[in-house]
């Protein structure tokens, strides 16, 4: 069979290149030029290494960079370990199905909200201490101990783990959603392998390629996170990313040059963490290869399984409690230490604020649905077109798609803002939508390309041999088979869109107000009640998305036993 090699790039590929490449290049230029001293608007017109020199003279810079690297990598590795051990030990059981139901909605909790809730849970004046005070501890005032903002970033790492576990879990779940996985489990069991051994020796090698890219995205995110670091992270000094934001927002405008130089350093730190992970990956494979073939059955793995369950339960409980506490705070007027429950509730104010938040909620919904819809559709179009052209998603395209996730937003947005201002688009819904797409589209491609690639091509071939057109194969075969991953992609994309703060603020120029911009503005003030309420509003839309992604396939596939995610 000879397929004529198409030299011309197809339309959706061009579209993705335009949607991501333009903004990324503009953003990179807007970051790199000031980093080398070129920012004409502030009167800096000569290229120099001065910003770099200033950056490296900043006290505590090495420590900040080291913190970003270590907390990000540690949190990502810990999250992956928890997810894999839990999945290995319990996949296919009733416990697994029950906990899975809790975990997916947790993905919709915004990072900042999770961090605020967690801070209130574990702080010295927090809920856990209050439960035991003063009757057991004798404390009528909070003890002066350094639990949050510890210099090694332990609290921050925990916060990131609590947030990344649901994401990686969902990605693992999607990876497991393929034929023959259960046969493999049965084969392993019949050969006397323990559950953990079956998973790590037989199943993980099959599904790991699908988890790898999400894992890299998690590392890139965790090494450059701003909000979690600000709430839970060390402060003397902070990790690199929050310091960048501080310089970028300093009234002393000349610090912007140094901030751009810092953005390049952040890029280097993130890249280093990614390379370190890839190195670890190789090392693990090399060291463990022999053990894969050793034939050890590891039949007694109860303690390992229990550890996985315990850690997963801890994550779910911590996140669940944090959410309940946020809910209580949104109703609380006064809630002072050591009261375990609010002293005064104020439902009127809650209602007032909820009504005031309604317009922002609608704007957020419109943006999230449009961004997720466009991103999912473009991704499907891209995958289908490249399939038809006989190409897989090439490495270069993947690199381009992945780039916006690697660039620290703060350094890259100033350039993006300039681009939109030149185009005269700033402050319009379309502009904000385009800006969101830069960050949403990569996640959509990330979430969908592997399920797409893993779809058994014989279904399509069988249909084609029966005379079905490409369009008919797409609509009648592929889309229904991929309904769940497509909906999950949509939900992830919507959640990413809802989470965008800086792009909405800078490109929206204050004309587009979302619950996220409102929530960050309120979080800068003192009203915990208002901050908690907006954090909850922020959660509503992604939560709705994930509920739909779970319900719709269940309804549509109610009479398709093989299409259900988990079989007994």
């Amino acid at each position, binding site marked *: 069979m000879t397929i004529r090699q198409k030299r011309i790039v197809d339309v959706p590929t061009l579209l993705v290149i335009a949607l991501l490449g333009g903004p990324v290049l503009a953003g990179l230029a807007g970051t790199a030029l000031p980093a080398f001293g070129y920012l004409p608007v*502030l009167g800096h017109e000569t290229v120099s290494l001065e910003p770099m020199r200033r950056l490296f003279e900043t006290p505590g810079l090495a420590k900040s960079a080291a913190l970003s690297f270590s907390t990000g990598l540690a949190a990502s590795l810990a999250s992956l370990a928890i997810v894999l051990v839990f999945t290995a030990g319990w996949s296919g059981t009733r416990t697994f199905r029950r906990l899975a139901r809790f975990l997916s909605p947790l993905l919709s909790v915004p990072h900042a909200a999770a961090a605020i809730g967690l801070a209130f849970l574990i702080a*010295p004046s927090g809920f856990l201490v209050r439960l035991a005070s003063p009757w057991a501890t004798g404390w009528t005032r909070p003890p002066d101990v350094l639990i949050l903002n510890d*210099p090694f970033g332990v609290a921050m790492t925990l916060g990131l783990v609590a947030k990344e576990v649901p994401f990686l879990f969902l990605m693992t779940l999607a990876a497991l959603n393929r034929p023959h996985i259960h046969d493999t489990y049965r084969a392993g069991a019949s050969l006397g392998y323990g559950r953990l051994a079956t998973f790590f020796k037989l199943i993980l090698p099959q599904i790991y390629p699908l988890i790898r890219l999400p894992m890299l995205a998690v590392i890139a995110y965790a090494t450059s996170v701003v909000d979690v670091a600000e709430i839970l992270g060390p*402060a003397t000094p902070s990790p690199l990313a929050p310091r960048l934001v501080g310089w970028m927002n300093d009234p002393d405008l000349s610090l912007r040059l140094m901030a751009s130089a810092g953005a390049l350093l952040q890029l280097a730190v993130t890249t280093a963490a990614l390379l370190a992970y890839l190195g670890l990956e190789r090392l693990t494979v090399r060291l463990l290869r022999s053990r894969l073939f050793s034939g050890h059955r590891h039949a007694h793995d109860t303690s390992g399984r229990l550890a996985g369950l315990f850690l997963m339960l801890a994550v779910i409980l911590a996140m669940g409690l944090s959410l309940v506490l946020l809910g209580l705070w949104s109703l609380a007027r006064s809630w002072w230490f050591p009261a375990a429950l609010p002293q005064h509730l104020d439902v009127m104010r809650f209602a007032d604020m909820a009504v005031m938040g309604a317009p922002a909620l609608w704007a957020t919904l419109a943006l999230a649905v449009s961004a997720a819809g466009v991103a999912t559709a473009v991704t499907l179009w891209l995958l289908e077109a490249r399939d038809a052209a006989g190409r897989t998603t090439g490495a270069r395209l993947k690199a381009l798609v992945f780039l916006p996730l690697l660039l620290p937003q703060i350094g890259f947005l100033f350039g993006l803002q300039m681009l939109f201002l030149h185009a005269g688009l700033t402050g319009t819904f379309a502009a904000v939508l385009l800006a969101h797409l830069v960050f949403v589209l990569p996640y959509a491609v990330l979430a969908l390309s592997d399920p797409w690639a893993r779809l058994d091509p014989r279904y399509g071939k069988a249909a084609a041999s029966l005379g079905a057109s490409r369009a008919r194969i797409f609509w009648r075969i592929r889309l229904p088979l991929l309904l769940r991953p497509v909906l999950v992609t949509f939900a992830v994309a919507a959640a990413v869109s809802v989470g965008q703060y800086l792009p909405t*603020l800078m490109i929206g*120029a204050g004309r587009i107000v979302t619950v996220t911009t409102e929530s960050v503005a309120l979080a800068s*003030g*003192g009203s*915990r009640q208002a901050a908690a309420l907006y954090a909850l509003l922020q959660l509503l839309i992604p939560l709705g998305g994930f509920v739909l992604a779970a319900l719709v396939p269940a309804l549509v596939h109610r009479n398709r036993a093989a299409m259900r995610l988990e079989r007994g």
Partner: protein
Amino acid sequence: MTRLLAVTLGLLATLLLPVAAQETAPAGDSKWQDVLREARGQTVYFHAWGGEPRINAYIGWAAREVVRDFGVRVIHVKVSDTATVVSQVLAEKSVAKSSGGAVDLVWINGENFAAMKSQGLLAGPGWAETLPNWRHVDIENKPTVKVDFTVPTDGQESPWGMAKLVFMYDSARLDTPPASLEALLAHARDNPGRFSYPQPPNFYGTTFLKQILVDTVEDRDALSRPVDTARFADLSAPVFAYLDELHDLMWRQGNAFPKNAAHMRQLLADGALDIAFSFNPGDASGAIANGELPPSVRSFVLDGGTIGNTHFVAIPFNSSNTAGARVFANYLLSPEAQSRKQDPEFWGDPTVLNVAALPGREKALFEALDLGPATLTPEDLGPVLPEPHPSWVSALEKSWIARYGAN
């Protein structure tokens, strides 16, 4: 009784407002009439810090008033940090967008104003002093309405409210608060771990540093000039000597700090700290009314005075709704708006007006205010120490970060 009077007067003011609005524009001032005419139908995007629901509600109220009386629509764009607004205007300038800018009016002062002014990001000078209500502003006793952190405003920003560093303590836990920096250090020695301040470069933390600087510096005149790098180490030595001693006695031994003033206030409410501070003398009363602080909280200031300044609203160079922005700025200066702002029930922010010189009816608006249980009277607030030149801020912050911010 006073509350009833206040309500009655408030109602009266609302009824009389259209009349008052007419009055504030003298018939002869045809230029202002032109501004009013031009402003009608304009939409003003007012970028202002949105972290405090009470302030947001106040801005919402003022917006409703001006749309009703002058046909100017004001939209409050809530920002978490005014520096992002500076960024916005800067980005617009760099692509030569000289009209139709996103920002029509911005709540600003100090460093951000100095930065915008020196980069030419503000509308031309003088407009603020042509507002009809400018005549009520207390230029004589409140010099900071024309000089913002030693930088002359040149009428490029219109005063909105007065700020003064005021400390708070919980009288249920502490009998007599420390009324000097020495006493504060002694208190920390006796009660380790119960004092802290927001981490510089947070505005409030930096203000605390400036307070120590102004209190301890030998040559106060040097502070009104741009910082002399050669002398900075000498002049600031007492500040860091003081902090070196204080930090070991502080909350978390100075390894962690409150994020901002609001966080510090929360720590006071939880009893984690003995003392918090604010830039708004009415803050404690407002927070008590709001349920954020226990009713036993009271305010105090340091002997010898505390730092004070003024906060303003300014129009960027590329606003296309300057008439509407001026009408709103003028309304914010009106006795009605200023007296409501000073009421801790709504906000509790001190007025920039010369209350004594106001006409009787408008003066009564202020006299009827119940400033709340934790607000000091103007006499008890003590002398106002002027802000140092903005360049001191970055010098102090830099030294602070080098010493304490990167262990």
